């Protein structure tokens, strides 16, 4: 037989393999070691830091964290190889091994690890099972990572589905909450809908180019290089549908309808994870697709993306102003932030790509902390998430109020926070590419957005005699640690941004054909 087995190099997806293997281990450990006796489970609110609440069932979160650590290690190892030998593809051109994917993977692993820490405390306090939660977080991070390094639309679709399915379930994880079930249902239906758009887009791209591969021989890149740009209408239409499908995942207007409900109904650690990870994964795929593979077609897709960017920034900011629930408000704010990242996508230059990566990394670190604070203040079923429930927070928990202030200022883009630097970078990239008017729209949207962040701050510092119930934070060492880490990252990256930006700039080398 003349069949030659391809030499399978794994460094490109080693982090994903590590996470998937860890997820399987978590499942087996959970199934075999069994559940902790229910009587030992502390009730919500009765926990004292350092007591039984966190000392009882460490093995699953610890295992998950080791998985994330291994993923980071393997990603760094892959980065060394990319530095040494240049960007390549693996698995018959299915996987791109480049700095871009490695940067995204490390960031995603950090988001995932923070989610595990928050989730552990959240679930133990609410007496919910943990094994599936950790496994699903691990699976979804693996899917998101695969999305970042996928060099074939089929793999992109499967990665998208893997992390989406895990997220649908995580959104409705607390089954006692009716709004959580509703949120999961809406997210699932609209997500499935968006997947069909993505799939149809793949079909059209395949029809136009005869391939789903991005870089390989006869792939889309080489098709664009060798075929005169005469009959590309089908490809442009397909690309449009791919943008629609990914637009759902990053919560861009007009594909944002699921966002407020899903963000509100999901357990807050999951909401933070969705805001940070789902956006990063979606934009990673968008950046690779639009700014690299379809770069020759940029004059065709750019009008559509500019439209999405402008509408997303404006609609997200304006609708956030009228929200009464802080989780819904942060959901609309996350929509607006997707719009800001889109301004970096339309720049189609290296500064735009590194800027988008920096933006998503810092936004993710900030938003995870913000939702962690919502989680510790929300109560067992997260009923205390209205803006007015934060009344008097400064009096009750001055440090927490201070950290929330910092995070809100960062989301608003105020100087000395990471959010300011991030906005500066993406807007700078768009100006450099000649889209100053888009940046002006972005600045107006930021100004509108500042209003609702300030609204929370005002309510928080108000000393009011009519406080019905003082905000009460229920938090253990894990929540405190994550919130502190998020605050530290927000502040430090706001002051010393250059190391991360340099890393992001290193990350713009895509695997070529």
């Amino acid at each position, binding site marked *: 037989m003349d069949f030659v087995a391809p030499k399978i190099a794994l460094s490109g997806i080693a982090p994903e393999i590590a996470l998937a293997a860890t997820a*399987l281990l978590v499942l087996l450990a959970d199934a075999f070691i069994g559940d902790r006796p229910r009587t030992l489970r502390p009730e919500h609110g009765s926990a004292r830091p350092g007591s039984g609440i966190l000392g009882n069932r460490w093995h699953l979160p610890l295992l998950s964290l080791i998985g994330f650590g291994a993923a980071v290690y393997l990603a760094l190892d892959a980065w060394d190889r990319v530095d040494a030998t240049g960007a390549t593809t693996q698995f018959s051109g299915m996987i791109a091994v480049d700095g871009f994917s490695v940067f995204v993977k490390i960031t995603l692993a950090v988001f995932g690890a923070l989610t595990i820490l928050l989730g552990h405390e959240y679930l133990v306090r609410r007496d919910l099972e943990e094994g599936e939660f950790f496994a699903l977080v691990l699976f979804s991070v693996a899917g998101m990572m695969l999305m970042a390094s996928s060099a074939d639309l089929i793999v992109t679709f499967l990665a998208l589905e893997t992390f989406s399915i895990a997220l649908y379930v995580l959104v409705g994880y607390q089954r006692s909450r009716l709004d959580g079930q509703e949120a999961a249902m809406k997210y699932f239906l609209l997500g499935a809908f968006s997947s069909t758009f993505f799939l149809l887009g793949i079909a059209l791209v395949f029809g136009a180019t005869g391939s789903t591969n991005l870089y390989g021989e006869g792939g889309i890149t080489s098709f664009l290089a060798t075929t005169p740009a005469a009959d590309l209408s089908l490809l442009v239409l397909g690309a449009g549908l791919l943008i629609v499908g990914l637009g759902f995942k990053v919560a861009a207007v007009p594909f944002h309808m699921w966002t407020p409900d899903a963000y509100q109904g999901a357990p807050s650690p999951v909401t933070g994870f969705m805001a940070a990870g789902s956006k990063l994964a979606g934009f990673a795929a968008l950046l690779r697709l639009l700014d690299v593979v379809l770069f020759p077609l940029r004059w065709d897709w750019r009008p559509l993306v500019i439209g999405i960017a402008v509408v997303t920034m404006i609609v997200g900011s304006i609708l956030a102003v009228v929200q009464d629930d802080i989780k819904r408000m942060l959901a609309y704010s996350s929509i607006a932030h997707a719009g800001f990242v889109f301004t970096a996508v339309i720049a189609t230059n290296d500064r735009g790509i590194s800027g988008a990566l920096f933006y998503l990394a810092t936004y993710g670190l900030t938003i995870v902390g913000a939702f962690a604070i919502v989680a510790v203040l929300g109560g067992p079923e997260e009923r205390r998430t209205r803006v007015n429930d934060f009344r008097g927070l400064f009096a009750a928990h001055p440090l927490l109020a201070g950290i929330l202030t910092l995070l809100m200022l960062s989301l608003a883009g105020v100087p000395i926070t990471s959010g300011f630097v991030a906005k500066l970078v993406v807007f700078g990239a768009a100006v450099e590419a000649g889209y100053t008017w888009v940046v002006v729209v972005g600045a107006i949207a930021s100004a509108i957005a500042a209003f609702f962040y300030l609204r929370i701050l005002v309510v928080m510092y108000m000393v009011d005699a009519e406080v019905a119930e003082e905000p009460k934070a229920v938090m253990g060492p894990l929540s405190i640690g994550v919130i502190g880490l998020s605050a530290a990252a927000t502040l430090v990256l706001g002051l010393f941004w250059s190391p991360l930006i340099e890393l992001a700039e290193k990350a713009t080398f895509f695997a070529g054909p």
Partner: protein
Amino acid sequence: MPEGGTYFGQYVTIGIFALVGVVLVLGTLQLAKLVAPNVPDTDKYTTYESGIDPIGSGWAQSNVRYYIFALLFVVFDVEAVFLFPWAIVFERFGTQAFVEMVIFIGILAIALLYAAKKKVLEWQ
């Protein structure tokens, strides 16, 4: 008999069998309609419940736990679909195809093991 060689020849056989199956069922039903006496009576339309008058509708909502069985069926159905081409190329691909399929089935086996250990596969 139409031309087309072995490929279509086989499917003509299948088509004939399918046609015979449909005709047999429909024909029998029509025959019954023709020869059976037709005496309509409202009592004949009630659900039979051991002589007791039926209460409520015949519709019962089934437990959501049965959904797992449906999904397990789908999962292993998809696996079976991949087994066919695998079995054909297995001889040529050798160890490589074997390892690939072992990973695939192994992951699904862990899923089954997990579900069994979690006691979601028990009826009651």
